[in-house]
């Protein structure tokens, strides 16, 4: 649009002098500007997700060996692996359906707009075919270094190998198919958007394209699950055992679905007014009990042969979240609220609070490591002895904190986080308080002052102001911070890596640390590590999604 209003004074090359030519020039310039950053972000930011999935489906120690299907996941999750992939496929299909319904609603039943479904499907299939081409070529390309091992080093041999691997017959066939579909999709989109005179064809094409893409992935996933299950069942039968995998998948899925339904019914009940509240709540409770029973009965059986160390790392991570996030948020909010009052030296306080967050985690972790060392003269132990308590092993202590307080007769389930983990949690809270304070302060500043004025005139007390104005209006910030904190905890690495000792055993290893260990040993296992990383990735996505949904009803976006 800008182009039409002001014409450039500088002579442009003949080809680009027309209006269309200038649009093409602008497109070319923009893509040139984007290319380097786009390439790096694609290669190291988007591609790794697909690559992790690819690696995880192989026996891949230091180097790629062979395709093993779901085996790495079964090693980590036992039978739950089948459920995991079944859910992934189902989720893709369900989301595709949701997108199609949204698309149907957006067309308002007009058959002309509905025709856009066609190029959308074509584009979706085209993307799938391009991905297929990419992953047909990938093993051949990845194998180049091995093929070069025995050969003499000639300059350019790598490039010729690279070109050769893209000229393999099956790769070329995949490329041709992908190219054909891409051209067909582009042509269809162009023609239809001209014919329909849809201004923003790109936006309305998005939904059907992504829906097709997801549906395709979902069907591939379902096929993969079915194949893996029948393989496992056949293997079990050959060994003379029975393996009711489908029953297990069904039971666990129904159990989880019931839990979600219970949550949905309960929130629904909160919005109803009359007798239906009672009915809905009863239904929700029934669903909760039934779903919970199914899961409690089935999950341990499904996880029977799962990787114990991995399961422990998940329980460590969950304890870590529970032991850090609420505390750091509460302290951060408290300090921010005090700073928000008429306080002198606000900038100074803010600067000092921020110090633990900006200083390198490695350096401050070393400080905490020494502060909480097991020597009788470490600061932590000096304080304990001066209070009349016995000195502790701190970072060397694998026993649970509640066991230490209440004695060894406590059952293992109630032992709580190990003392070593508690020290690391303390450190984590210490580093994040300042960050939370600064973000909360920014949120507080955005609450309009008139609201407080009006409430004061109505005679609200300080606590009432805080409870009924500050807290609800601050909820987007709180939501954002808790999300960042939870995701950050699932990824916590530096402080644990520095502070972990052989003495604390595995009691401080979160999921990230455990995954890192499988890769960085003398005998690395890339395939297994990738499988665990992919599962963690899905869990974090799921957390983000659920937290989004839950906060939609709770968060007040003022």
């Amino acid at each position, binding site marked *: 649009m800008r182009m039409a209003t002001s014409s450039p004074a500088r002579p442009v090359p003949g080809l680009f002098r027309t209006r269309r030519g200038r649009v093409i020039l602008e497109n070319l310039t923009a893509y040139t500007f984007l290319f380097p950053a786009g390439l790096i972000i694609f290669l190291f930011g988007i591609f790794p*997700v697909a690559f992790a999935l690819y690696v995880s489906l192989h026996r891949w120690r230091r180097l790629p060996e062979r395709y093993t299907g779901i085996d790495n996941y079964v090693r980590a999750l036992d039978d739950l692996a089948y459920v995991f992939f079944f859910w992934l496929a189902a989720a893709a299909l369900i989301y595709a359906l949701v997108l199609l319904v949204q698309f149907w609603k957006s067309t308002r039943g007009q058959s002309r707009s509905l025709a856009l479904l066609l190029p959308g499907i074509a584009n979706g299939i085209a993307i799938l075919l391009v991905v297929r081409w990419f992953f047909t070529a990938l093993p051949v390309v990845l194998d180049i270094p091995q093929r070069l091992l025995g050969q003499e080093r000639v300059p350019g041999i790598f490039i010729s190998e690279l070109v050769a691997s893209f000229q393999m017959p099956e790769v070329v066939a995949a490329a041709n198919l992908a190219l054909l579909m891409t051209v067909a999709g582009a042509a269809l989109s162009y023609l239809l958007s001209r014919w329909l005179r849809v201004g923003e064809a790109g936006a309305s094409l998005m939904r059907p394209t992504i829906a097709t893409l997801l549906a395709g992935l979902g069907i591939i996933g379902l096929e993969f699950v079915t194949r893996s299950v029948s393989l496992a069942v056949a293997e079990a039968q050959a060994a003379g055992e029975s393996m009711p995998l489908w029953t297990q998948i069904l039971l666990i899925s129904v159990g989880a679905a019931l839990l979600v339904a219970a949550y949905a019914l309960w929130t629904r009940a909160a919005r109803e007014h009359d007798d239906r509240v009672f009915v809905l709540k009863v239904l929700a409770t029934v669903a909760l009990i039934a779903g919970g029973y199914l899961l409690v009965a089935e999950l341990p059986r499904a996880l029977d042969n799962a990787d114990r160390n991995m399961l422990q790392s998940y329980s460590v991570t969950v304890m870590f979240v529970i032991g850090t996030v609420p505390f750091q948020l509460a302290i951060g909010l408290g300090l921010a609220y*005090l700073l928000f009052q008429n306080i002198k030296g606000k900038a100074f306080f803010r600067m000092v609070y921020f110090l633990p967050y900006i*200083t390198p985690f490695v350096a401050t972790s*070393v*400080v905490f490591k020494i502060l909480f060392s097991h020597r009788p003269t470490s600061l932590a132990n000096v304080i304990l002895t001066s209070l009349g308590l016995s000195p502790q092993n701190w970072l060397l202590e694998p026993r649970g904190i509640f066991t230490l307080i209440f004695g060894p007769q406590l059952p293992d389930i109630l032992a709580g986080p190990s003392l070593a983990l508690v020290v690391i949690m303390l450190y984590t809270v210490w580093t994040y308080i300042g960050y939370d304070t600064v973000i909360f302060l920014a949120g507080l500043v955005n609450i309009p002052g008139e609201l407080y004025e009006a409430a004061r005139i109505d005679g609200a007390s300080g606590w009432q102001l805080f409870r009924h104005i500050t807290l609800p209006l601050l909820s987007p910030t709180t939501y954002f911070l808790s999300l960042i904190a939870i995701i950050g905890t699932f990824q916590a690495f530096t402080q644990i890596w520095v502070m972990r000792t052989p003495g604390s055993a595995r009691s401080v290893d979160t999921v990230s640390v455990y995954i890192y260990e499988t890769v960085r040993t003398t005998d690395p296992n890339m395939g297994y590590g990738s499988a665990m990383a992919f599962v963690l990735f899905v869990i974090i996505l799921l957390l983000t999604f659920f937290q989004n949904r839950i906060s939609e009803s709770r968060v007040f976006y003022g």
Partner: protein
Amino acid sequence: MAEGARPLESAAGAQIATGSPARRPFSWLTFLAYVVLILGVVQAVLPFLWMISTSFMTLSEVNFGYVLPGALRFENYLLAWEKANFGLFMWNSVRITAITVAGQLLFCIPAAYAFARMNFYGKSVLFTAVLSTLMIPEVAKFIPNYLTVIWLGRLSNSLLGFGWINNWPALTVPFMASAFTIFLLRQFFAQIPEDLWDAARIDGAGHLRFLVSVVVPLSKAPIMTTVTFAFIGSWNALLWPLLVTQTDDWRPVAVGLTKFVSSDAPSDFHLQMAASVMMIIPILIVYFFTQRQFTEGIASSGLKG
């Protein structure tokens, strides 16, 4: 992504509205508020004070649990510097940071400009794709990226004669473009008045000229923020450098300190503290000089570096 992201402009207005009259009589509540705030300062600063104090002690003073050193032993710093080979690690960190920052500026500024001020096909899809990479956690990426870097290293070894592992490319190239930087710069570039662009066009400037001679000089503040974030990111990073370096040639200071603490001098606590202080000092200097941009960068974007 950034739900907490709101401009800070309303800050002054809101405070005038909420603030009470300038002079208030002494109140116990205010006094209590100060006490709590100062307690907050104490908990934030105490580990740092202890670290500095310990870094000047002798080993036996540390082992006896002294709080203050008998004399300021500056030679601890020299000893730690030598023993931990800190000169090399510091120099490595500086080199890595410089290369990363240069790459970020070179690649992210044009990309941010294209997203902010140009019309091209597929803009919204591409921008969504770039932003979506912010949602992908580091744990999900480090194994495949490690494999990619190994493979690229072999490629560059046969083409250019240098590898990536144990070398600068593995430590810098993956960070030369960041979705966060592009987002931050785009927000700023989009606010530059349209009139400037019209004037530049009448003078015959194209997008590149406009970007280099108008947009970049106007955007010193956000570019400074970007540089600060990149600096802090590459100074603090541990997991990735640990993975892609097996020798000291390019190891950054974070890895160097970890190694010093765990294997070189596991019980020389005073030297460990001296080394930690030395690692913190450059960050503190940067923090004090760019504090405003830094804090506001975090507060308004809601994302850490």
